């Protein structure tokens, strides 16, 4: 009898694991089959036309890259700086616990609350309005914990011997960090940045209220622009031009998964 239970439970666990993968393939498969016909150079480079925004989604692609680029350009130096402080300079005690608690809390803030915060601070209070800047800055705050954590892990993974060797050659602390520690940790830091980029690129609730939803090709930092994620949300809930929605979804997934794949490739190369 106990043997029977053992076999049964093994099968049950097997199906649980397989169904998790099945879900992934159903989602990817469904969106791929429905969307692949829609994606063409005209779709990628064209502009939305007509009453229900059919046609291309070029401005939304640009808006997505633009907002993400703004976010990552702002958050990367700060995130790495914070990681350096925590791993190299921190003397422990209250401040470090405070910073860790801050980062953990930031990581658990729901994305809609980031949207509210971005709206209240950047759009209204600082009068940046609905723009790439507001969207980018809010995404930066959201991505900060991810960059800090991965950068800190990368730096801590650098063997002590590297630091000792550099100090032994008379290097100052900053020289050791800049010439020995960071170069060694760079691939893993880059992995963290790419993961953060993928996460920021896939965000919707945050950009919906900070980057604006007007279909527009953003040029200046103050220009508003509907990102791919907001475009997909509006198309899906408008429920009018579904083919465009499928195409947008496929492109969005392709880009985000490319980021994840890039990060994984870099991570395995390093390990």
């Amino acid at each position, binding site marked *: 009898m*106990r043997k029977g*239970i*053992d076999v049964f*439970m*093994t099968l*049950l*666990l097997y199906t*649980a*694991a397989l169904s*998790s*993968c099945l*879900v*992934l393939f159903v*989602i990817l498969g*469904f*969106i791929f089959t429905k969307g692949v016909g829609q994606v063409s150079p005209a779709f990628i480079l064209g502009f939305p036309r007509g009453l229900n925004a059919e046609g291309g989604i070029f401005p939304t692609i640009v808006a997505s890259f633009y907002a993400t680029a703004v976010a990552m350009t702002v958050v990367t130096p*700060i995130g*790495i*700086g*914070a990681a350096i*402080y*925590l791993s*190299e*300079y921190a003397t422990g005690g209250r401040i470090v616990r405070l*910073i860790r*608690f*801050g*980062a*953990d*809390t*930031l990581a*658990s*803030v*729901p*994305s*809609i*609350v980031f949207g*509210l*915060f971005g709206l209240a601070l950047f759009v209204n209070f600082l009068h940046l309005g609905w723009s790439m800047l507001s969207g980018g800055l809010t995404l930066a705050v959201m991505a*900060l914990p991810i960059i*800090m954590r991965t950068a800190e892990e990368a730096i801590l993974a650098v063997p002590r011997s590297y630091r000792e060797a550099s100090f032994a050659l008379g290097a100052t602390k*900053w020289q050791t960090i800049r010439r020995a520690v960071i170069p060694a940790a760079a691939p893993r830091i880059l992995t963290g940045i790419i993961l953060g980029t993928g996460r920021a*690129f*896939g965000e919707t*609730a945050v950009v919906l*209220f900070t980057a604006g*939803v007007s279909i527009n090709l953003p040029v200046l930092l103050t220009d508003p622009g509907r990102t791919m*994620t907001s475009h*997909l*949300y509006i198309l*899906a809930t408008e429920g009018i031009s*579904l083919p465009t*929605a499928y195409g947008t*979804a496929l492109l*969005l*997934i392709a880009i*985000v*998964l490319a*980021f994840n794949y890039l990060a*994984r490739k870099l991570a395995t190369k390093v390990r």
Partner: protein
Amino acid sequence: MSARILRKVFLFCALTAVVSVVLIFIFVAVKGAPIFATAGFTRLFFSMNWDPLKGNFGMLPFIVGSFIVTLGALVLGAPLAIGTAIFLSEIAHDRIKRFIRPSVELLAGIPSVIYGFFGIILLVPLSRMLFGGSGFGLATAWIVLAIMILPTIAAISEDAISAVPPVYRMGSLALGATRWQTIKRVVIPTAMPGIVNAVVLGMGRAIGETMAVLMVLGNAPSVPKSVASPASTLTSAIALDMSYASGVHQTALFAMGLILLAVSMVLITVVRVWSGRVGR
């Protein structure tokens, strides 16, 4: 650059995380708190009547909605996730592991708007067929949310389970236990703190989810009567009205944001205290 200045710069970078959290609290509280003064606690938290245009801001339907949606997602998603975690660390041999683990990680990488879209085009018609109604409702939201929190819970539980020392498994097997008995009686109890930790983090993610819920739950400001009826959560209510709300209505939305912030703070402290005490 002198070392002292550098140290200050890095400290400043590290403090931005703390400053950001404080700023979030300040802005959301400043914009949201007035509602408590004008509308008073009871009318907000214990009234079911949400009708902003007529000045009623009873948030109970959303609080109850968030609770029911999150609970359903955990009931569906957690067992599946923990099952996957156990399978990955206890049973799967390398060939399968190399196939399943990346797929679970990829599931975590998919943006939530894609889950919402997937919900609308596939799960809504499915739910309409199975449970009737319009298809937008609890059932669809539960399934979508369960899929979304699955990778989070699976990944963290797997870390906890594989951290159980192999010596315990050997001891149990040597006493003639079957593999499942070893898992059930030794491995899981030892890894339990880690698993609970994973479920709580999954719950945090479910409560905070906005886009997918907004797109499939049907956004009805009422407590759902059946699995097929629409409902609304704190996050979807904010997202739905935010683009046009003004005046007291907007304050009410910020107040809901404050509640969400408080809930996720409580969850984080529970996790930190719990894992701190167990000394993970």
